[in-house]
């Protein structure tokens, strides 16, 4: 029925329409009777007037009945449906018996249109329409992690309150999960008129992984109504995709290079938009950018940090309607350059001939970097006795023949206290002496056997590498290929000691690099020389990163066991879980994680052979800090780059994703302002009724008195 009444209870008043009819009948019954003589004249007059009289009578009756009906209708607040329901066929004016509203609260829904976000627009749109459902049980879900709770069917006012509580998720839309939960809710309801209303911007993200076929349970009777709040042609948006550090380590006073990946997801070129670098809450640099449609670019910021420790910062894009992806948080760890004591066991008057020539050049490649990344002190074995090891983070003993007992004791204390010790061997090293002297202090990771000599025409290559080790992670991608040019023709056969492990092995299986953790420190032994005497490693390309990573690793006091110090905190997308790994003995220890808003949550480390905590509440972009007894770690969370792509999914593609399910896809901007899926678009007829009533009244007066 196109005509509807908002206060239908008033329609009971329509019974009053019988009043004129009753009056008419009563009046007829109570007609005055007059005995009259000239009835023939009346009859003749009546004959002429009969039709007109009857017409008047009926007309008056109809008008008066109409007046009463009009008054009743006026009280009942008449409205008129202007357009047919473009939705599913069915009786209008009432909704389904059970409705699940899925509100897409993913990051892309934070796009600001006008002055409010699409999420707010969608929410208000839904609230206005849900209010008309008086008999429908409604459950509200969201596509984000904030909607993971168990929803319940409730009446419209409660559902509206639930809808109000849905906040932006900052992450991706889990549409599949939302549908899974929706169908789960419907599972217990049989034989009812069920419907799912999905309010989304229809951005590609989330839909790319969605297919109704991926759901185990699908109810084909459930109608799916999808209202999209984005634009068909998509929206302009630029986003920061990622942030990385060029250097492995950021040292105080040494320039660090941040590479920020920016992309224009829109179809129009972006000109003169600004990318800012904020460090410690202060803007330190900015870049003006131009990006063509779909283009992405690395923007470089160079910065020198005068403080050590954890430095939080952000890079920000200005002038964008989707603010969520305009900020990228990061945390830098600025350290002092590792202090390395290089002990040359075979010094020569010519530097080139010295045992540590290549080592020193690898640690401080003149002309390559502006500032030294290591502070290296070079001494001969004789000078070692006078050194205060507490001033150093790592010590290299290169082909040192003999170390006094006092120095060995100091070295042992140095390593147990967190220092790093690296042995390079050579012709001055006596296996028996080392095994005896350093064996006593338990500093050697391996027992030295005999010197193995291969002819220069039949050297050995590196045959095995533990690429997962922090010191060798730089070669993870290339693998052994990185060491393909390395030839070793003389080396010490080593026998690993308990707790030690070989990180590099020669083709013949003999260990080339062995590590052993000792106390808070680490000890490594390289089975050959640091110079070109027994191998050609020192003149091969991987030598420099190999040496630097080895010393970064060994020289990292206070770093997690077996870890290379991070220069940039780990960066995760919103919603991805963070695994925090602790030393095995920390099982049962409490780990407290503080989110960007300062909320703290405690977890107990668990696991076998490894203590770990899995933190899943990475719902907001920003810096998260985890602390436990004797350790801490920081990680940052950034918006998912996929959500920055506001290109809408094509309707045809969308239809395919739902297979044969009854789907109705609507664009909100194509719908009338007063469109209601469960109620026809209405026009208030109160004034029209009023005019009709006035008209009827006027006609009644004329007919009753003049006609």
């Amino acid at each position, binding site marked *: 029925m196109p005509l509807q009444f908002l206060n239908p209870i008033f329609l009971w008043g329509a019974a009053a329409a019988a009043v004129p009819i009753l009056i008419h009948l009563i009046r007829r019954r109570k007609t005055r009777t007059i*005995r009259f003589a*000239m009835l*023939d004249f009346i009859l003749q007059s009546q004959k002429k007037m009969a039709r007109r009289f009857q017409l008047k009578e009926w007309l008056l009756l109809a008008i008066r009945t109409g007046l009463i009906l009009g008054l009743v209708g006026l009280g009942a607040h008449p409205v008129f449906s202007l357009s047919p329901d473009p939705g599913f066929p069915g009786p209008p004016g009432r909704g389904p018996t059970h409705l699940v509203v899925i509100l897409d609260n993913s990051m892309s829904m934070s796009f600001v249109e006008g002055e409010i976000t699409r999420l707010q627009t969608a929410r208000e749109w839904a609230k206005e329409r849900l209010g008309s459902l008086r008999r429908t049980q409604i459950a509200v879900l969201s596509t984000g992690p904030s909607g993971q709770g168990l929803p319940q069917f409730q009446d419209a006012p409660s559902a509206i309150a639930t809808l109000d509580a849905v906040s932006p998720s900052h992450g991706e839309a889990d549409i599949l999960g939302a549908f899974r939960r929706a169908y789960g809710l419907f599972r217990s309801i049989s034989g009812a008129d069920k419907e799912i209303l999905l309010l989304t911007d229809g951005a590609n993200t989330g839909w790319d992984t969605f297919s109704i076929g991926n759901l185990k349970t699908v109810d084909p009777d459930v109608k799916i109504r999808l209202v999209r709040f984005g634009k068909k042609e998509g929206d302009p948006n630029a986003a920061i995709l990622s942030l990385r550090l060029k250097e492995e380590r950021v040292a105080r006073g040494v320039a660090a290079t941040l590479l920020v990946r920016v992309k224009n997801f829109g179809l129009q070129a972006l000109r003169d938009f600004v990318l800012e670098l904020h460090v410690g809450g202060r803007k330190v640099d900015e870049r003006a950018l131009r990006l063509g449609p779909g283009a992405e670019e690395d923007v470089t910021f160079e910065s020198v940090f005068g403080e050590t420790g954890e430095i939080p910062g952000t890079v920000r894009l200005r002038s964008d309607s989707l603010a969520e992806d305009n900020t990228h948080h990061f945390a830098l760890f600025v350290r002092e350059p590792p202090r390395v004591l290089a002990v040359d066991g075979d010094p020569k008057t010519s530097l080139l001939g010295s045992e540590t020539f290549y080592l020193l050049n690898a640690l401080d490649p003149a002309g390559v970097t502006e500032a030294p990344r290591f502070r290296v002190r070079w001494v001969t074995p004789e000078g070692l006795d006078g050194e205060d090891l507490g001033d150093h983070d790592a010590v290299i003993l290169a082909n040192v023949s003999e170390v006094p007992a006092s120095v060995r004791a100091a070295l042992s204390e140095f390593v147990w206290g967190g220092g790093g010790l690296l042995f390079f061997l050579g012709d001055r090293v006596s296996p028996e002496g080392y095994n005896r002297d350093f064996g006593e202090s338990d500093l050697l990771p391996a027992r030295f056997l005999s010197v193995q000599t291969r002819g220069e025409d039949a050297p050995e290559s590196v045959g095995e590498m533990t690429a997962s080790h922090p010191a060798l992670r730089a070669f993870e991608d290339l693998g052994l290929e990185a060491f393909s040019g390395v030839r070793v023709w003389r080396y010490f056969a080593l026998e690993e000691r308990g707790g030690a492990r070989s990180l590099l092995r020669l083709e013949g299986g003999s260990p080339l690099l062995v590590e052993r953790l000792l106390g808070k420190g680490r000890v490594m032994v390289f089975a050959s020389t640091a110079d070109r005497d027994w191998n050609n490693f020192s003149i091969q390309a991987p030598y420099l990163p190999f040496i630097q990573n080895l010393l970064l690793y060994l020289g990292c006091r206070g770093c997690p066991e077996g870890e290379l110090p991070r220069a940039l905190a780990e960066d995760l997308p919103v919603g991805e879980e963070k695994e925090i790994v602790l030393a095995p003995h920390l099982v049962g220890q409490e780990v407290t994680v503080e989110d960007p808003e300062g909320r703290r949550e405690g977890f107990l480390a668990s696991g076998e052979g490894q203590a770990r905590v899995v933190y899943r509440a990475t719902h907001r972009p920003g810096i998260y800090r985890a602390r436990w007894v004797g350790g801490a770690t920081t990680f940052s969370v950034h918006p998912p780059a996929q959500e920055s792509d506001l290109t809408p999914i094509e309707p045809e593609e969308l239809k395919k994703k739902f297979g044969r399910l009854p789907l109705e896809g609507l664009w909100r901007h194509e719908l009338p302002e007063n469109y209601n899926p469960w109620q026809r678009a209405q026009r208030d007829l109160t004034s029209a009724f009023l005019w009709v009533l006035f008209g009827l009244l006027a006609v009644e007066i004329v007919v009753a008195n003049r006609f």
Partner: protein
Amino acid sequence: MKYLDPNLLNRVARQQFESRFVMAGNLSGLHRSPYRGFSVEFTAHREYAPGDELRHLDWKIYGRSDRFFVKEHEAETNLKAFVFLDVSGSMAYGDGQTKFDYGCHLATALTFLFLKQGDQVGLVLFDEGLRRHLPPSGRRTQLLSVADALEREAPSGKSGVVRALQETAANVSHQGLAVVISDLLEEPQAVMKALKLYRHKRFEVVVFHLLHADEVDFPFDGVIRFEDLELPRRVTADPKAIGGNYRRLVSDYVQEYQTLCRREGIDYQLFRTDVPLETALVRYLASRG
């Protein structure tokens, strides 16, 4: 007596009802009738009128009152007046004073007037047939007889003026005066045909058409069920709606009677019952003079 109203009779007593025709060539007397005023039986005195024989003057009265009166004797009266009064049901209309009452008063007044003039007067009461007939008489007691007869009657039955005139016309032998008092709710042409019977017998015919004011003005309000006073029929009507038409029809109907009567030399008078009878009658009699 109900219909003997002294006030009315007093007003009428000073009037005369003169015949407009020559009665049997006798020019003496009030009616210029050759058959009038020679009876031995004295019936009444009347004032002298030019044409009266001087021998009929009552000198004794003249001696007493210095006025001329002539003695009238029944045998000497040469006018026979017939008063036809409609007593059908339709005459019963009216609150308080009905058309019938009005007609009765008119009949007694005329009887009184005729008798006073020395004429014989008879009364015919009719509805759809002749209900009562008082033969013409010039005796004084005739007035009482007429009044008594009227008092005993009540209006009922259908109108039958045509039939009454037809039935009585056969029994009248010489000229006279026929006074018809009725609401004439019959076909005018038929009524005129019946009246013409009297005209053919050289009767002067006077028609008093009685209508109640309601019947002329139709002043009713609201929807009314009208029931016929004579026939078992009824009709519901809105007077406001049909009033115009009704009045036009009544006017046409009166007009038709007037025209037809004029054409046939019949004196037609419409008497509305809301006009006092003495006023209406005096005015009429004056108009005849």
